[in-house]
């Protein structure tokens, strides 16, 4: 593979299937195809947003990229190294460069550890710094995320949701990673707190030259944070492109439905009035052909038989739909 210096993360035909075990021997008879043949790249210093409804596989992709989940098939290339082909020790080394912030700051922090130990743990695992040096760095990192030295000696339950999320962000940046997966980092927070966390994430991205994979279902947040957007439906990327392409010139019928369905906090914002049809099918038995055809207003016979592949619409704008030119 050609070395490309602009690209930090590249995934190729990534698949992640979860077995559904049943019967007395608990044999896997069926699989949930949470991520099914997904490829995309994330460039250095950009924020790629991954949007879609629950169960579309967006969280699974984030975790599979970090190898918190072993992919069923396909490759993940991080910083020009193929994560699927390296040893455990090499993976541990690479893990320093990639971190994650989870959705729920009430469950992602160890309740019986002090903040200094939670934030300092990555340093303990990955470096041989002295405990004095670790404390110094924890203090510095907490200041970076807007917390104070005195917070080091407290437990997570003493903090509000927004402060806990700051602790989780501090833990993620203390190793000076290149790449952070943000898995719905503000969905559990109130709006006035969300604004502060989003501002913090943008500030850190600048200061530390970070690259983000931002997983969310809030389109206004996507518009505010992202450079590019990938839209997922039932384990597939159906459309990917620059933010403006996705918002101003959406090519996939699902992207349009999703944009119409998500309420925008602005009563003067004019948007297409499309009411989504039906419900998301069971991912154990996804529809044949285009997975969206059962809910699509434009579906023809071809859509029921043949699975559409990503086609180029424009520079960096790709869509997987047989009829995007006509609709």
């Amino acid at each position, binding site marked *: 593979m050609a070395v490309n210096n602009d690209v930090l993360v590249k995934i190729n035909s990534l698949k992640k299937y979860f077995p559904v075990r049943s019967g007395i021997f608990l044999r896997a008879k069926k699989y949930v195809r949470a991520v099914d043949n997904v490829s995309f790249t994330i460039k250095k210093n950009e924020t790629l947003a991954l949007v879609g*409804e*629950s*169960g579309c596989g967006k969280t699974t992709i984030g975790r599979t990229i970090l190898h918190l989940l072993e992919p069923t098939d396909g490759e993940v290339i991080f910083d020009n190294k193929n994560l699927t082909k390296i040893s455990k020790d090499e993976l541990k080394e690479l893990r320093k460069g990639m971190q994650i912030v989870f959705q729920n700051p009430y469950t992602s922090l160890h309740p019986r550890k002090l903040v200094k130990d939670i934030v300092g743990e990555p340093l303990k695992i990955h470096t041989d710094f002295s405990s004095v040096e670790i404390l110094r760095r924890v203090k510095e990192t907490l200041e970076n995320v807007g917390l104070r030295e005195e917070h080091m000696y407290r437990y997570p339950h003493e903090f*509000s949701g*927004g402060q806990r999320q700051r602790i989780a962000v501090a833990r993620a940046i203390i190793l000076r990673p290149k790449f952070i997966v943000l898995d719905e980092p503000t969905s559990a927070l*109130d*709006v*006035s*707190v*969300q*604004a*502060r966390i*989003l*501002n913090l994430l*943008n500030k850190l991205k600048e200061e530390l030259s970070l690259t983000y994979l931002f997983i969310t*279902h809030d*389109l*206004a*947040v996507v*518009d*505010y944070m992202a450079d590019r957007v990938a839209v997922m439906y039932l384990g597939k990327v159906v459309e990917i492109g620059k933010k403006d392409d996705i*918002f101003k010139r959406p090519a996939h019928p699902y992207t349009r*439905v*999703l944009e*119409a*369905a*998500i*309420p*925008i*906090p*602005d*009563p*003067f*914002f004019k948007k297409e009035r499309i*009411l*989504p049809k039906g*419900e*998301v099918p069971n991912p154990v038995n996804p529809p044949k052909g285009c997975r969206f055809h059962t809910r699509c207003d434009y579906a023809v016979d071809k859509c029921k038989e043949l699975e559409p592949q990503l086609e180029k619409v424009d520079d960096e704008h790709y869509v997987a739909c047989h009829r995007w030119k006509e609709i």
Partner: protein
Amino acid sequence: MEKLLSVRNLRTIFHTYRGVVKALNGVSFDVYKKDFLGVVGETGCGKSVTSLSIMRLIEDPGEIVDGSVVFEGRDLLKLSEEEMQKVRAKEISMIFQEPKMALNPVLKVGYQIAEAVSTAEDLPIKSKEVQEKVYEILKAVGLPDPESMVEKYPHELSGGMAQRIMIAMGLVTKPKLLIADEPTSALDVTIQAQILHLIKELVSEMGTSAMIITHNLGVVAEYCERVVIMYAGNVAEIGNVKTIFKEPLHPYTKGLIKAVPVIGTKGKLQTIRGIVPDLVNPPSGCRFHPRCDHALDICSKELPPIKEVEPGHFVACHLYD
């Protein structure tokens, strides 16, 4: 506009081991006939407690200590439990956030809807009339094939279907007011759009008023006509949705609207400093004053009363005295 429900100076408290949580601190607002009202605020602002207090569903250790809830000329807080049951059965319906937890898991959904009809109309549950009404409402909420739907148990339904059943149960008695407490927060966005459209369509057909409790300003902006903004157990501002988004008056409303990114937001998001107060020891006077950039001396001393500054636009803030 004609008033359907007037909440005045409502105070609800909860006795906890940490002390008394003053959850509602004198809440006042009106719901008009054919209203589509949103009640919005952040966690702990008292929006759910308000709806539960209206329905008198506050249980020990909670207690409604003051105020009135006048519904069509009667103060609901003064009714006997039996009379209140009748109000809940026929006149005010409520639907909740988690439809699957609100349904009885061991009864078929058809029976649960029929029960609502038979209680409200005083008809035998097995009568033909009841059955017809059940079929009719199931079609109205967009559930095809009512004959097989009535035989299903709640676990056989998806979240969206379960919420449709809840709406069917709530509207089958043709109530005068439907209270929906975060009706779509547990659902996917495409299903959320379907459910909110459905509620809006059905209540306008029936001439029912709706009160939607939500934390989502997007839901308010897209679906509601009027909105009540709550903060820490008080009403901060009431008005027409477009007016509130365009010309908010209360500093909290202003901060809240600027804190949410909308399509096209550039630059840093504005934030509200500080955090939501602990309602065991709420700040004196206006509960928002410690976080307010415009606070005056009086703000820490006196709770601002809510007053009408323009027709239909109410605000509780000393800046508008």
